[in-house]
């Protein structure tokens, strides 16, 4: 019973959506979509954010309670979270407020820097791990080197044919392999969506009764 009603919602609602994709009828396009689905989707969506807040709060407070590894740093999480929320709710979110200043000068640089660490790890991997152990790996490395050289202005100076060779690699073998993979992925995702639509796939409902 606890799983049946949500399952029925997905199956019936999903079938109405399939009809929506094909039919321009007023009841489907206006009544179902504009007057029912959209306002309901907007009204139910903001609460999903609270899920993330609760989850992280529970995890960090557990860590502090049980004195887990590096538990002291959880205070930094709570401190920054509370200050950001207070700054946002009390000070407002317009440009120039403390809230936006914290986001632009603390969060944005840190978030960008986290990603930029990947460049170092990749250079280290290039030196220590990328080995041409087999003919296939050699072909992969050669293709990578050609594309890498052709991307940069220096490539044109090394050989004026390099950009067109690289463009050929991207336009022909790369396209063929990505298209094959995309077709496979597309077929797989359509199959999964059909399974969800027909109620065969139920993992999204979670475990338990």
């Amino acid at each position, binding site marked *: 019973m606890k799983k049946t009603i949500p399952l029925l919602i997905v199956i019936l609602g999903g079938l109405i959506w399939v009809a929506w994709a094909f039919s321009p009828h007023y009841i489907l396009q206006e009544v179902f979509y504009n007057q029912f*689905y*959209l306002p309901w*989707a*907007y009204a139910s*969506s*903001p609460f999903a954010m609270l899920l993330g807040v609760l989850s992280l709060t529970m995890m960090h407070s557990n860590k502090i309670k049980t004195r887990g590894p590096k538990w002291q740093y959880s205070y930094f999480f709570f401190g920054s979270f509370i200050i950001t929320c207070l700054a946002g709710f009390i000070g407002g979110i317009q*440009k120039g407020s403390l809230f*936006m200043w914290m*986001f*632009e000068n603390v*969060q*944005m*640089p840190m*978030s*960008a820097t*986290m*990603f*930029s660490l990947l*460049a*170092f790890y*990749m*250079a*280290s991997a*290039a*030196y*220590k*791990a*990328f*080995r*041409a152990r087999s003919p296939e790996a050699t072909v992969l*490395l050669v293709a990578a*080197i050609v594309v*890498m*050289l052709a*991307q*940069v*202005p*220096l490539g*044109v100076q090394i050989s004026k044919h390099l*950009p067109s060779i690289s*463009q050929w690699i*991207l*336009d022909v073998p*790369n*396209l063929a392999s*990505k*298209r094959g993979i*995309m077709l496979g992925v597309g077929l797989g995702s359509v199959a999964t969506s059909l399974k969800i639509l027909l109620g065969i796939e139920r993992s999204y409902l979670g475990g338990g009764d």
Partner: protein
Amino acid sequence: MNIFERMQKLDRRWIYIVVALAIIIPLMIPYDSDNVATPPTENLYQMIDSFAGREDRAILMSFYHDAATMPELFPMEVAILRHCFERNVKVFTLTWFPAGAPIIDYAINSVKEEFPDIQSGVDYCNFGYKPQAFAMVLGMGDNIANTMNTDAEGRKLENLPIMKGINNYSEMNLAIEFSGSSAGGMWITYARPKYGLNVAVGVTAVMAADMYPYLQSGQLIGMLSGLKGAAEYEKLVDIFAAYRDPKIDYSIKVDEDGNQILPGRPFGREILEDDSSKKLSLITTQTKAKFSMDEFAAFSAKYPENMALLNSLRSLEDDMVIIDVTQITPEQRSQMGETMYRELDRLTRNTLYKFKVARIGMNAQSVAHIMIIVFIVLGNIGYFIQKARQAKN
């Protein structure tokens, strides 16, 4: 331990130092280099340029990323905004991420500084953060003003001058999505089949290879891939959209036949392949405005009251008239007026730093790529030699 074993066991922190130096040094010493434009970039440029000066056409830029991917995507966004502001193309911007909203503000404010005539609600409109992307994407196919309702500043869309002539995707005919992942997916899957919207993407280079099937099938009309795509676009904007002809008076908007006079010039392959166009997209600072004799005569005819001042500033070099803007004193600048000074500054073909960030970055990219290739080769040499020695033993 012989040298090859030591090479294999090198502490990774030395590698990190080499990487850091390989990037810092080229960034501090700018030099001119050429980024060859590829067809996906040129197609996008030409499509946007075809909307130049039209009231019934607009583009939509979707900033579907956060600060982490800004180094690659932000220069693209700035270059496209500059193109649109130069060539009078209406621009709408939005984001589906809360973290994308400040990025839109950064991009627009940074480009707007150089275009004092550009106004919000007239030449561009920022929708800001909008939730429920799927509903918005489909709703805009019917009517943009009803779906979006208000812009980021809270103004009702139907009252804004920019919406004159723009109803839905038939007019806002190009959507460009900037993303580090799944760029353009929603537009290609939902908006394009239903409404015939043209879609283009600006992606990080990681995703670029995966987008080629969509390019070939026509589902994407163009693509900017990573920092290189941004550098290519910046170059095209410098050569075409930001180009100013000294003979034309751009303060007149309509000529005698009733045709619009738009700043810049349309895309032309012969101009792009001509060597002289390389001088239009230089990275190093340019301070000298160069004219041929005819061009100088036409330029000075536009400002007859400052003819004497121009003649005092000019010098001759290889049959070209040169005016060095660094030699203009503040008194001379106030005498000639801001309009003439700005036009002279334009004619030096100097690009501001913020409009050549990607090209400067590509120089560092050159060095970094060579470094990575050297690492791969060295690592493999050491590995194979060690393997051969072990096999011998």
